């Protein structure tokens, strides 16, 4: 097990380097010149001489790779530059908002599981009955709704009609309800379907039929055999969709004014605050990669077939 984790960590190194290189290249290609952008935002005329000197001081007159290496060095030391807008270091700002986003991600993942696992199992057990059709219908509808439309519908129905929750700001505890619901509705639609398929597949396997034939109670078969397999499906799905979830939080956070990194990034994009966008992309990719690593390790621990194959 430890050897496996060690191996996976080593494999991450080129990927992480690639992520930083691509993010750096992305900013380099458009801004090319942070000094221009910096003084553009500062307003007023700045003499060419001052800009040249600033460029030299920042090392912007050096070749691309050299700039990348020095940027990477700073990044590794926790220095992701200074925001063009607030003129404050980016990393502390970013880290202070990160818990809000992770909190939102966590609550929506939990809610998604609470909705989709029981509904998926129910639909599978009642296959081709009314309940199944109803659940499949809702999951299909949910799959065709963009999450920003879901948020607006929720705002319309909850905040306007019932005046139940405050929509704006993340000050109080209720304000997480609507963003969480939005993300969970979109994801549950997808998962319910997948859980249903996974359960059906498992229920049709020969060992289940054999267990039934031997008179083992349906409930026992379910808990001992089917459920672990479904958990495996869920872990895979979660790791696959954490990417779209992180992107989804950006839209949902900016609609509900949830003070997380997604909103920070969208605001940064509107103000062309490049270092901030860069920090967002690099961090999100890192989180994504590590979540995938953790899910692989889970997978490894849960499924003896994979474990034995690798060892």
């Amino acid at each position, binding site marked *: 097990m430890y050897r496996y984790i060690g191996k996976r960590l080593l494999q991450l190194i*080129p*990927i992480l380097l*690639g*992520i930083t*290189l*691509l993010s750096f290249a*992305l*900013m380099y290609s*458009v801004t090319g010149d942070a000094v221009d952008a910096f003084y553009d935002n500062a307003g007023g005329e700045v003499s060419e001489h001052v800009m040249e000197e600033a460029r030299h001081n920042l090392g912007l007159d050096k070749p691309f790779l050299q700039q990348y290496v020095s940027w990477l060095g700073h990044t590794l030391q926790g220095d992701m530059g200074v925001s063009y807008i607030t003129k404050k270091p980016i990393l502390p700002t970013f880290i202070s908002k990160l818990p809000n986003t992770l909190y939102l991600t966590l609550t929506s993942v939990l809610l998604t599981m609470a909705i989709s696992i029981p509904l998926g199992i129910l639909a599978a057990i009642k296959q081709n009955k009314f309940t199944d059709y109803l659940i499949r219908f809702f999951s*299909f*509808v949910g*799959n*065709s*709704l*963009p*999450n*920003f*439309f879901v948020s*607006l*519908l929720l*705002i*319309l129905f909850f905040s*306007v009609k019932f005046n139940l929750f405050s929509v704006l700001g993340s000050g109080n505890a209720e304000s997480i309800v609507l963003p969480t619901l939005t993300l969970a509705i979109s994801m549950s639609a997808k998962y319910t379907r997948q859980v249903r398929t996974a359960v059906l597949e498992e229920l049709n396997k020969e060992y289940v039929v054999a267990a039934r034939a031997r008179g083992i109670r349906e409930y026992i078969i379910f808990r001992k055999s089917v459920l672990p397999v479904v958990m495996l499906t869920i872990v895979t799905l979660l790791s696959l969709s*954490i*990417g*779209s*979830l*992180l*992107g*989804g939080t*950006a*839209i949902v956070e*900016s*609609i509900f004014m949830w003070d997380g990194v997604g909103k920070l*990034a*969208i605001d*940064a*994009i*509107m103000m062309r605050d*490049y270092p901030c*966008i860069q920090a*967002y*992309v690099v961090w*999100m*990719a890192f989180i*994504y*990669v590590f979540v995938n690593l953790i899910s692989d390790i889970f997978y490894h621990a849960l499924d003896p077939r994979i474990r034995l194959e690798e060892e």
Partner: protein
Amino acid sequence: MSTQKKLWIFTFLTVLLLLIAIFAYFITPYDPNAQNLAKALQAPSGAHFLGTDSYGRDMLSRVIAGAQVSVLSTLALVIIISLVGVTIGILCGYLGGRVDNVIMRVSDIFLAFPGMVFAIAVAGILGGGILNAVIALATVSWPKYARLARSQVLVIKESDFLKAARLSGTTGWKLILRHIIPNVANMLLVTAVLDIGTLMMEIAGLSFLGLGAMPPTAEWGSMMSKGRSLIQTSPWVVLAPGCAIFLTVMVFNLLGDTIRDYRDPRQS
């Protein structure tokens, strides 16, 4: 209902949508960009079936005009990523060796980014505009198609029919054009149709964030974004484009599911 019948129905609906998108400006009851402040924010009525927005523009006309931007840009996106992805995938699978290795490592890196996050950043950096939104999503989405095509090519390469074709002297481009591409395209068609709905929602999402179509262009995502502050008083300015996205995505999803069932009845 038989799969065959469903296929006809959803194909018909899709063609209908495409016709609306292509001929949008010929069928709008009003000029979608004509402002008339005296008629601002009217509720749906006989004259304005879906009401009017804050500039007094007819919502129905704007929703129809929005179909053109949304549907055509999504189709352009799907075509771009399948062409680019499939070309790269086939070359990698067919050539193998160092080219394959390098390109697949690059695609690994692209896949390491959470898709929408990267798309938002790319679109944000390129600046607004529907074309930039399409470019941003294409940048993010090609590796999936490249990987799928590559894995197909690897299977086809080992198949008996390809070996037979080789033995009878078929080589190079002819082998790719006549034997590999048709088989890969076959499989990728389903993936591409199934992706249309998601990609359409992503384009609309970028527009919603102000990173896609720019006002005054009628586009569903940006219409919803502009209308969201009015949702309490005039919900139709959000509901009309919202339902348009929902229904369109649903038609494409139904078509995709049906094509999949039709091709591979085992999965249904």
